[in-house]
């Protein structure tokens, strides 16, 4: 397996598919920002990490596009938190991007000979 620069992967992934990652994270249920960042870290086994300075502007952008819907939720005895839901538009975008991503990964595999797991 060829050695790929961690930082490069990080940059590439974020550039092309940061949106896809976030949409996937909130797919099954609404989550707040801290939860989203922790989940990304955990599911990528520590390889991906979004900083506060980039994660939230990204969330806001997705919200402005109408793919996410953010709302303050209050629970008894806790501070209110802002939760993000996947909108129906977001759900459609997620499906389309998944398809594109699969095609891209398959093509990369064929061209570079890298087998994917």
């Amino acid at each position, binding site marked *: 397996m060829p050695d790929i620069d961690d930082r490069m992967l990080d940059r590439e992934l974020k550039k092309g598919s940061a949106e896809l990652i976030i949409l996937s994270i909130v797919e099954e249920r609404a989550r707040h*920002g*801290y939860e989203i960042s922790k989940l990304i870290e955990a599911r990528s086994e520590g390889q991906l990490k979004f*900083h*506060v*300075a980039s994660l*939230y*502007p*990204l969330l806001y952008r997705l919200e402005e596009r109408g793919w996410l819907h953010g709302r303050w939720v209050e629970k008894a005895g806790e*501070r209110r938190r802002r939760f993000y839901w996947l909108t129906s538009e977001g759900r459609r975008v997620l499906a389309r991007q998944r398809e594109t991503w699969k095609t891209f990964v398959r093509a990369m595999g064929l061209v570079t000979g890298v087998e994917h797991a």
Partner: protein
Amino acid sequence: MPDISRGAEPRPVEPKRDWAHEIRARLSPLNLDAAREMEIVEELSQHLDEEYEELRQTGATDADARRLALEELLGPEALAAYMRPLRQARVSPPVQPGGPRRSLLRDLAQDLRYALAALRRQPGFAAGAILTLALGIGANSAIFALVDATLLRPLPLPEPERAVMIAERTAASSDERVAPNNLTDWAERSRSVETIGGFMGGVGGMVMAGADGVAETVSRQWVTAAVFDALGVRPVAGRMFLPDDDRTRANVVVLSESFWRARYNGDTSIVGRDIRLDGENYTVVGVAPDSAQLIGKTDLWALVAITGAPPRARASHVFRAVGRLKPGITLAAADADLGAVASALAQEYPKTNEGRGVTLVPFDVAVIGADLRHTSTLFLGVVAFVLLICCANVANLLLARATARSRELAIRSAMGADRSRLIRQLLTESLVLSVAGGALGLALGAAILRVAPSVIPDGLLPPAIALAFDMRLVAFCAGAALFVGLLFGLAPAWQATALQSAQALGQDNRTTVGGGGRLRNILVAGEVATAVLLLVGAGLLLRTLLAVQNIDRGYRAESALTMMVDPLGSEYPTPEALLQFYDAVEHEVRALPGVRDMAWATTVPMGMSYEGQRFVDMGGDPPVDDNERPTADYQVVSPSYFQALDLPIVTGRAFDQRDTSGGVPVCIVNEAFVRTHLRGRDPIGMRVAIRSDVEAPAREREIVGVARQVRGRPDETDEFEQVYVPMMQDPTGDMFLIVRPATGSASALAPSVRGAVARVDKQQLVSVRDVMTLEDVAWEATGRHRFRAVLVTAFAALALVLAMVGLFGILAYSVQRRVRDLGVRRALGATTGDVVRSVVGGAARVLGVGLAIGVALSLALGRVLESMLFGVQPVDPVTFVLVVAVLALTALVAVAGPAWKATRVDPVVALRSE
């Protein structure tokens, strides 16, 4: 000292980490919307908090955890760099409410946006305020339509200010009818009046047989040729009457526009054709617009010729007259001019015109009438008060809200907003409310106007005057909305912004009601006073209605069917023929099952009197001047009349078989007649000279009986003198058939009675009209009183509910604000009674002050209402006691909720709140 903090857990001391400062510094280059920036700061601070906590839990030191968490924000510019492409960072720097002055228009848009958002946050408050305003404005718009139609809007005539009503004036009355010869002479000799037309007040029906063979009863009014010119109306089709029609005594009629459209589908070819009216041919010369019906509701106008009237006609005062002033002539000038003409006539014809002057009244004043003016003004006053209460309630809501928002306002003020800017923001909110309330109120007013025609009693509005939903009404609503918006918005805005910022910021929101509370108490006391005023008015009018409805009508028959039967003159030309017809119908009707009795009469009690007033002279009394000759209501009745209506004969006898056309002329008079004219003499055997006009030959009649007093109108206060004459001795064409049922409902007899008429002469069925029961007649006669009483009562109830909502509002609010105070009292051992007393005490004071002011105002109000009252004194103890009781009872309901809530305050919970 009791442990008042029992149950309160000590809060963990939270580490002081000021992420907000760091984040705000990084966001500052973006110039975000203030509210948005606060949200982002809150959200990111939370994230950093959690990051920090997690790091601490994994063993990092405080300093390390803080440093690592801050690294999440990357460099000082990263956050702004990521944010900059977003829309929210690109918006033009928005105005902070309360920020320094910028463009007026942008400020306004911003104020509006902010106001809408603020109201959306409190939908309950907004809905309550808007509904309250809609009720007030809706009620006002409906009444405005009435006031506009009756008091404000000019009559639907060209140059209505030139139209005047002209009457003869005597020492006894300023509103005498006009003799035809005087009418002609006035018009010829006056230099200030262009033309004068006459019309006969009472509108009678006639049977019209159309060319198509359909016979029907139509209403017609007798007029002189000049009447349409005097009104200034132009023909819709054909022409109006001409002087030539008068000179040739032509049989001509003019149709009213609505009749022409309904009966002839607006066909212009009817002009010039003949129609048969009461068996005679009349030529239709034209169609007049409906505005001509301002002189009386009618289907058509028939010409009465007055040229060459005989000199004795100068004593027949039969016409009401309408004149048209020459352009630029004032009423006073015309009055002086016609007055001079009248005194010249008095010198020329002293026998008839001595002491007769003229009275000129603007036509609109005469048409609308004092009664309707009073009613309109009364309603206007009433709804204005209701609107004031609505304003007070909304102002109260706003005041309470403003107090709760004083902190927010103080912060903005501390950030540099000047006071005028804050006031404008708050005013915008109240204007948004009032505009929404106004729009809803307009819809409500439109709905009220839609059902109004079925509620307004017949005859209250003059013909040709209708309540309209038009731009004037919309403009009124808009004006009212704007006015109330400013009125109820200004005080709260002023008060809310009066606090010094430091003072407001220092406030811990737990104190009892302060200055705003006083203003609110004054408002509610005002509401209570207004409600008391309206309730007293409603009570007086209801008592009047009761008095009028329960009046002793004089007759005892509990129920009877009445209908007008008007046999065609062409079929029954002689008195004998008429009497035969009446006899035959009587025979048929008496044979009907379920008929107890029946009678013929020209009058129904409290209804129409077809014969009207006749001049009466008591035989043996010194002769009276023509102008002061007394009159009495002349009624032609069949012998069974008194028995059928169960109207007692107190002295003497009823009519019987002796009283035929060939017998001694007799009459029966009523008690008022005896009191006025007999002055202690025995009425039986006295002779009365009766004549239809002062010049007509007198007919002497012997009094054979005295009937009990019967009322002509339900609210008459003068003695109503009546003379009954047997039908056999003076048969006439317009008679009411009165049928008294054996049992049950009188109206159920209507079909069989019609059948009986048809069996005698099927053709005459067409002349049967006005089928009613005596109850219907009495109900219609009391219509105006009912209309007033019901409407004012409805408004008073609305006012009461609103005032109680206001009372409830201040109490509920003060209890909510005093939870901690009440908790302390409870903890210190106050009983439930103490708490209730402390809460209710304030309410009782407000209520008491309002009640006292209301009662004082009501004492003055009684005098204003006096002319509308009957059978009740303006200062009526029963009404006042009832009003106080109603108020106390409803106040109990309003106070109960908050008081109960106050007693439920748990000291523990109360002290932990805030």
